[in-house]
């Protein structure tokens, strides 16, 4: 083996000199000449030919109303995926200055007569109807939102719904007075769609970033008009909201007149509302603590029509986030100085799609009946009711656990359970509407193909009413006693459902078929030697919906829904409903 042969220096020098001469003389392609200096292609002509378009770097569109840090810091999720960016960008520009939407709908409801007698032994016929077996009504919604139109710091929002219906009427004779009077046929399906009218849900204007940044004034936000305010309860008011949304301190105060919600006004009485909240988010400190403390008050004035007294509600909340995806929120709500409810909520999330929520609530006898506007019952049966009286408040514990995850990006699972128990003493009054129960439910959705998914769900609830030793025997011609409140109601309830969905994505085309069945077992309270009194009800039904977009602005929606016959209503075959809707979006 020899070493690598080498030319001697003299011979090499001669050759190198020859190469240099050759290169200079002939500009020959000399083998290993570096491309960096000679062996390049000439600049393509089109490089110089492109016109100077004088483009300026387009700054990133900035919202005229920049988002302030949220007043309620939440569990941060993973960064938005590119898919989400793509998806959302395809639907609506977040910084769109004007957004407008108009819905026009038409609905048909029917309950076809079966010819059988109802449980009250009436047999309504087409010739002698006792209700309106077919009803049609129109409805619509208008939405409009602006951001930075006219004034860069101004945003507005308007949401209005309207309906048009012409209920059928007939005349009946008052058996007591013998006077004929006009009455409205009952609708096939009971709803509040009995009046034509227009209802404004939102109508506000908001100013933000209109003050100088000095002392943080730019964080001040003022919203005026018909709006929802978020305090111990979400309230619909006509009024004014002033808020300061800082990274550590969040303050808000509001005042206005309460607005009835999602229904025709039943009273001109609109009690005044005032409230305020303060929140310290210690996560904003330089030495951050994973804790936020919040206090809220809400004051509602006396309502003469509803016969409800003035109240003061306060809420104190602590929000502890020991880890990035774990949150524990504890709150205590008081009503007129008494503890009304306590709540502990624990949330945990893993990899964005696995969620567990444990929610524990304790309500005392001093809690409100439904929401802050209803506190006391009205014994006068002739008084006009402005609220549904579901009986007295019973001290109660409600706990629920919900957990869900997504497996292999396509198998979506949800499991939930809840348990509720009375905390009252035996001497306390009991309420069938607040009976102890436990329930277990779940749902699963499987995406079979890119655009096809099937799902199933189930729910079972077992309610623990007081049980009669034996049912009351119903004697003809004798006024039978009413069973006590705590014995009434259903014992068990079970529902199963399944659905198949085809979707090409939002705002394109989707259709869904749903099927479901329900079984309810009622407490057996009465027996009759001559008549069979049903104690359970089994019914089922289905719905098919179609949602198609024509271009990016026009949406057509249709839903057809049917139900089976009802055990308790043998006079009809069941319900049918057709809903058509046309939506224009700008």
């Amino acid at each position, binding site marked *: *083996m020899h*070493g*690598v042969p080498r*030319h001697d220096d003299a011979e090499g020098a001669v050759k190198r000199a020859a190469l240099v001469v050759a290169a200079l003389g002939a500009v020959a392609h000399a083998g290993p000449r570096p*491309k*960096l*200096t000679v062996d390049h292609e000439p600049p393509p002509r089109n490089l110089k030919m492109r016109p100077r378009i004088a483009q300026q770097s387009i700054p990133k569109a900035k919202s005229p*109303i920049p*988002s*302030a840090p949220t007043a309620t810091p*939440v569990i941060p999720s993973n960064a938005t*995926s*590119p*898919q989400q960016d793509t*998806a959302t960008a395809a639907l609506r*520009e977040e910084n769109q200055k004007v957004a407008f*939407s108009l819905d026009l709908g038409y609905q048909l409801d029917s309950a076809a007569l079966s010819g059988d007698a109802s449980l009250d032994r*009436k047999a309504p016929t087409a010739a002698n109807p006792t209700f309106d077996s077919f009803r049609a009504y129109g409805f619509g*919604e208008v*939405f409009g*939102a602006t951001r930075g139109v006219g004034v860069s710091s101004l945003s507005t929002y308007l949401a209005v719904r309207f309906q048009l219906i012409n209920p059928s009427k007939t005349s*009946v004779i008052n058996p007591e007075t013998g006077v004929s009077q006009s*009455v409205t046929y009952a609708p096939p399906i009971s*709803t509040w769609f009995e009046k034509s009218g227009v209802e404004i*849900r*939102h109508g506000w204007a908001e100013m933000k970033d209109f003050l100088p940044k000095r002392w943080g004034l730019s964080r001040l936000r003022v919203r005026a008009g018909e709006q*929802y305010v*978020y305090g111990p309860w*979400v309230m619909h008011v006509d009024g004014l909201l002033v808020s300061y949304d800082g990274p550590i301190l969040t303050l808000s105060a509001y005042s206005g007149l309460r607005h009835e*919600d*999602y229904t025709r006004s039943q009273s001109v009485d609109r009690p005044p509302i005032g409230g305020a909240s303060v929140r310290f988010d210690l996560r904003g400190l330089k030495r951050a603590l994973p804790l936020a403390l919040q206090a809220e008050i809400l004051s509602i004035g006396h309502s003469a029509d509803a016969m409800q007294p003035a109240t003061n509600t306060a809420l104190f909340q602590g929000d502890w986030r020991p880890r990035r995806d774990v*949150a524990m929120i504890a709150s205590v709500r008081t009503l007129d100085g008494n503890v009304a409810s306590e709540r502990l909520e624990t949330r945990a999330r893993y990899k964005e799609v696995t*969620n567990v929520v444990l929610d524990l609530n304790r309500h005392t006898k001093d809690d409100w009946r*439904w*929401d802050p506007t209803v506190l006391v019952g009205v014994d006068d049966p002739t008084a006009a009711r*402005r609220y549904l*009286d579901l009986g007295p408040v019973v001290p109660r514990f409600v706990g629920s656990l919900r957990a*869900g995850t*997504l497996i292999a990006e*396509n*198998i979506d*699972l949800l499991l939930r359970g809840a348990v509720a128990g009375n905390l009252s003493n035996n001497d306390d009054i009991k309420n*069938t509407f607040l*009976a102890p129960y436990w329930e277990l439910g779940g749902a699963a959705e499987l995406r079979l193909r890119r655009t096809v998914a099937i799902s199933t769900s*189930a729910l079972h609830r077992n309610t623990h009413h007081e049980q009669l030793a034996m049912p009351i025997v*119903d004697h003809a011609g004798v*006024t039978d006693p*009413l069973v006590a*409140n705590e014995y009434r109601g259903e014992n068990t309830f079970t529902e*199963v459902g399944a659905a198949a969905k085809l979707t090409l*994505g*939002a*705002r394109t085309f989707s259709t869904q078929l*749903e099927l479901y069945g329900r079984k309810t077992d*009622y407490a057996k309270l009465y027996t009759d030697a001559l008549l069979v009194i049903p104690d359970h*009800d089994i*019914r089922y039904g289905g719905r098919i919906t179609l949602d198609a977009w024509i271009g990016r602005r026009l949406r057509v929606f249709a839903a057809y829904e049917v139900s089976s016959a009802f055990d*308790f*209503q043998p006079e009809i075959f069941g319900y049918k409903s057709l809903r058509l809707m046309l*939506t224009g979006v700008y």
Partner: protein
Amino acid sequence: MRLVHAITLAFVLAICAGACAQQRAKEQALPPIDVTRINHAQHAMVACISCHKAARPGADQHKPCDDGQCHQKDFLGSPTKLCQVCHSKVESSDKGIVSELKPYPVEDAWRTEPSKFSHARHLDNSRMEARVGFHVQCVDCHVRDGAKVAPDHAVCARCHAPEANLINAPKMSDCGGCHQDGMQERTRQRLIKDDLHFDHDRHKTDRKGKPIKCEQCHTEAAKSTSFADHTPPHVQSCVTCHDDSDRTPGEMRMRVCQTCHTQRQTGLVTLAPRSHLPATERPLDHTLAFRRDHAEVAERDASRCATCHVKMSGNPKQACDECHQTMEPSDHRITWRELDHGTEAAADRDRCATCHVVEFCTACHQVRPRSHGLKYDFQTEHGRLARVNIRSCLTCHAERECTECHATMTQRVR
């Protein structure tokens, strides 16, 4: 009921098993590093120009590798591993020394990449025009003679060589302008891998002959400031076109796996990754659980909700009711209003109260139900219905109403 649950569970498990049975092609690992390759990090103290004078370092009689202070002894003795940096083998034979050279430059996953190259800088039209008087587009570097090529030094030289006479453009001799000393050398992530196949030539125009712009797929290229952050196209780019019948023929739509995958067949149960779903499919985190517990996310950024859910103002604060007043829960079916909602309200009235206030209940409960017939008809024959579920009566009527009537009536009340 147990049977129903068992059937449902078995069904779900069967589907899951079928889905999992389909194995996806696993991502192939990068090839092992060729230990004979020159390590630039170890030569960081040597100026680039010392070796890269010629097109191939060392072509000039092994200079400068055989410098006395470097590897001279390796060139004077028997062939060593160092020889394999450039030669596939070095051996003596009857015809003399056989020293077959390896191809250069090496085109593999470990090739030296221009770590500092900035697409963003080159595609910033206004900046380019301000500095050199023109701007470039993707094809100026990536296409030669109509074919897509990976840009090499020759491409860069078209503008950066002295002959181009672009005073404000960096010079080719400034190696550090593109290459970072000691930078780990490995190829960036690629979208086309495993069993995927893709042909740029077939993606020049869409079904109707409309040109497909580079940035439609390479959406992030213009933002890339270095080689490392130059991400490959996202699958969503594919979805956008391959779900569009105007742009893609039917046999090449996203639903046909074979369009891109050679080892994957379209079957009844073909679980597509989330990235393959329609572009406007709901986001990943919108699971069944999310639909029930989304308050926290919505509070954080209501404006994100508004990007898809129309009828919202898009205002980032206090916007929950903009949706809760318009979107009906899925269980609010046709029988909900008259038959179903009562049991649900009794179990969880807080859920109702998320959207409804008390007046909403009364608005309906004031309306005479269909079962009551015409006015006055129901007074004498409601007993049988009442005995089934007396609670439904007493939802609207007070007990006193019953007793006041029943106590005074003498006729049969059933």
